[in-house]
């Protein structure tokens, strides 16, 4: 068990910088998820922590020691790979005990640790099977078992659920969370799936183009994104971005979306945005769940407007509605009983208490 720190870590491949200076402090016992689109440097970062990639610049510390030049086997880490990477010629027990056998642990202790890990992962019955006799989910459990028996300082997961089907993925996600609650080992987990990131992480690190966009708890990222990238990446369906500008009208600050739609900002928001130049090109960021059907009694800060729906998607517990605002496609989430129909007019309510205002050029959330 140990904390992990990255200091200005850079990875260059020839002329390309895959990772461009990352600072990250991971506390002991913490579950950190690195998330981002493919090519954002998250896997490279993980592999640098593992020691499978050299770092071009900066420092990586595990448990306070700089490990830049320490080979993987001496870093006391364990890694779970996307394609499981089980040794095909060994049984489950042999797979799990391989690392311990290399380190010449006493036989009795190896057996005890393997039995304990197998019990924890509910694979006791499979212990004598070969990997090819196992299903995908079982293989992934064995891969986790191989990590657990070593009792390492840090667990590293490289997209461990991406090869599983959707249903199994949800199930294994819960398993991983349970295992972490039991063993409490510091964990770094890489995924491109923001749902996995949100559900598993103590803190999520959103990466883009080799840099960290934002670090925060799942709630922080969801409700207080720092940049347009984070705002758009976290949440499904994604946040809407609607071009807008601020204007003063009769002593109140208003936000104008189209020629005919403009809303007065709630007082708290008005105070926050009042200092902004009125000429700035801005984006209104609003999540679909804050665009709902209109009610008779509206809370303060909720404004209504009329629109014509393009497409509706009934999801069962909700219906997604799509429409355009001056050519910008917008998605809303309404009650399935609200009567939303393809091509029909509808009155929608926008909850401006949950709005975000972004600078269109810099992408920064204001």
């Amino acid at each position: 068990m140990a904390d992990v720190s990255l200091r200005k870590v850079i990875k260059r491949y020839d002329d390309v910088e895959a990772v461009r200076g990352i600072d990250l402090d991971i506390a002991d016992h913490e579950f950190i998820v690195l998330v981002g689109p493919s090519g954002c440097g998250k896997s490279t970062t993980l592999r640098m922590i593992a020691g499978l990639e050299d770092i071009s610049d900066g420092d990586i510390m595990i448990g306070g020691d700089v490990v830049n030049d320490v080979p993987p086997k001496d870093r006391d880490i364990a890694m779970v790979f996307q394609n499981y990477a089980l040794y095909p010629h060994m049984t489950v027990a042999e797979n799990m005990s391989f690392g311990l056998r290399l380190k010449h642990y006493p036989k009795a202790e190896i057996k005890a640790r393997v039995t304990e890990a197998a019990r924890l992962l509910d694979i006791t019955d499979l212990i004598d099977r070969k990997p090819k006799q196992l299903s995908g989910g079982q293989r992934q459990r064995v891969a986790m078992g191989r990590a657990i028996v070593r009792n390492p300082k840090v667990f590293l997961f490289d997209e461990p659920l991406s090869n599983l089907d959707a249903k199994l993925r949800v199930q294994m996600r819960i398993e991983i969370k349970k295992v972490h609650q039991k063993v409490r080992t510091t964990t770094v987990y890489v995924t491109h799936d923001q749902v996995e990131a949100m559900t598993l992480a103590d803190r999520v690190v959103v990466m883009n183009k080799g840099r960290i966009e934002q670090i925060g708890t799942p709630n922080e990222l969801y409700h207080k994104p720092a940049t347009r990238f984070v705002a758009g990446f976290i949440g499904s369906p994604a946040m809407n971005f609607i071009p807008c500008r601020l204007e003063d009208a009769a002593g109140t600050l208003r936000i104008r979306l189209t020629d005919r739609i403009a809303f007065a900002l709630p007082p708290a928001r008005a105070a926050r945005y009042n200092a902004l130049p009125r000429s700035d090109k801005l984006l209104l960021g609003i999540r679909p769940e804050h665009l709902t059907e209109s009610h008779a009694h509206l809370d303060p800060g909720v404004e209504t407007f009329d629109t014509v729906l393009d497409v509706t998607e009934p999801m069962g517990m909700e219906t997604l509605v799509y429409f355009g605002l001056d050519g910008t496609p917008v998605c809303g989430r309404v009650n399935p009983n609200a009567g939303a129909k393809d091509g029909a007019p509808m009155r929608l309510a926008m909850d401006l208490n949950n709005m975000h205002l972004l600078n269109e050029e810099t992408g920064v959330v204001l």
Partner: protein
Amino acid sequence: MSTMAIDKAGPTRKLGSMSRDRAWALRWSYFFLVLFAIFFLTPPVYMLITSLKSSAEISAATNPWWVFHPTLSNYVELLTSNQFLRFFWNSSIISIVVVIVTMIISIPAAFALARMKFWGSATLATGVFLTYLIPDSLLFIPLFKMLGVVQDLTGITLLNRWYVLVFIYPTLTVPFCTWIMIGYFASIPKELDEAAIIDGASWLQTLLRIFIPVALPGLIAATIFAFTVSWAQFLYPLVFTTSIDQLVLPVGITTTLIKGDVFNWGQIMTGALLGAAPPLIIYAFLMDYYIAGLTAGATKG
């Protein structure tokens, strides 16, 4: 192979153009398989027939495809001849040593070329294969000269000693076996050695405990290849060994059983058949591995 063919032929569905196409494809493949089987099996069958005849019957103008007075005298004579057993022994010991030497060189070489990316490793891998393409008929004169120079300089006699072939044959077997195994090692997922490294394995442990067991089919294919090449090699032993007691089987049979223009056909055929037996037996046991190994090397290399 035969079980696969039966599996495919088994379900005979009436409808669907797919199954009809497949039935025709099967008929054609059987037609050509039978054709090739006849083509390739005729010589050994003829050898077997001839080996069972006496010299008198071979030269008699009877039906060459039938044995009228079968006799095992050729077999008895060869198997009781010290000379023939000596050839057999020479061939065996050379082939076994060559296989071992080849594996000791090829496996680490292939592992290094497939996994340790160093400057020029890709070029080197191609270079290894190109060496294999140089025919032995081009190499034997310079090799002969080299051994002569070695003898002049050091006084170590290698020419006309059976063990010289243990040094010569690997020039044929090592490049090809390395090449097969590069392909095979390259087809092992990178994560497997990364997992081993993280588990604390050294390069050598990764090779011995992960790569060799996982790539065993390829290894067996390479072993069979090395053995067959050594066993069947004709030109090098013909050039490098001359004394009767130093000869290997293929050369020994032709040198001792052809006297001037007198061909002792019965014994030649018997010797050839007996000589073909060891590779045949090895193939029969390891056939499935051999095919799996060759195709993996072919697609990935």
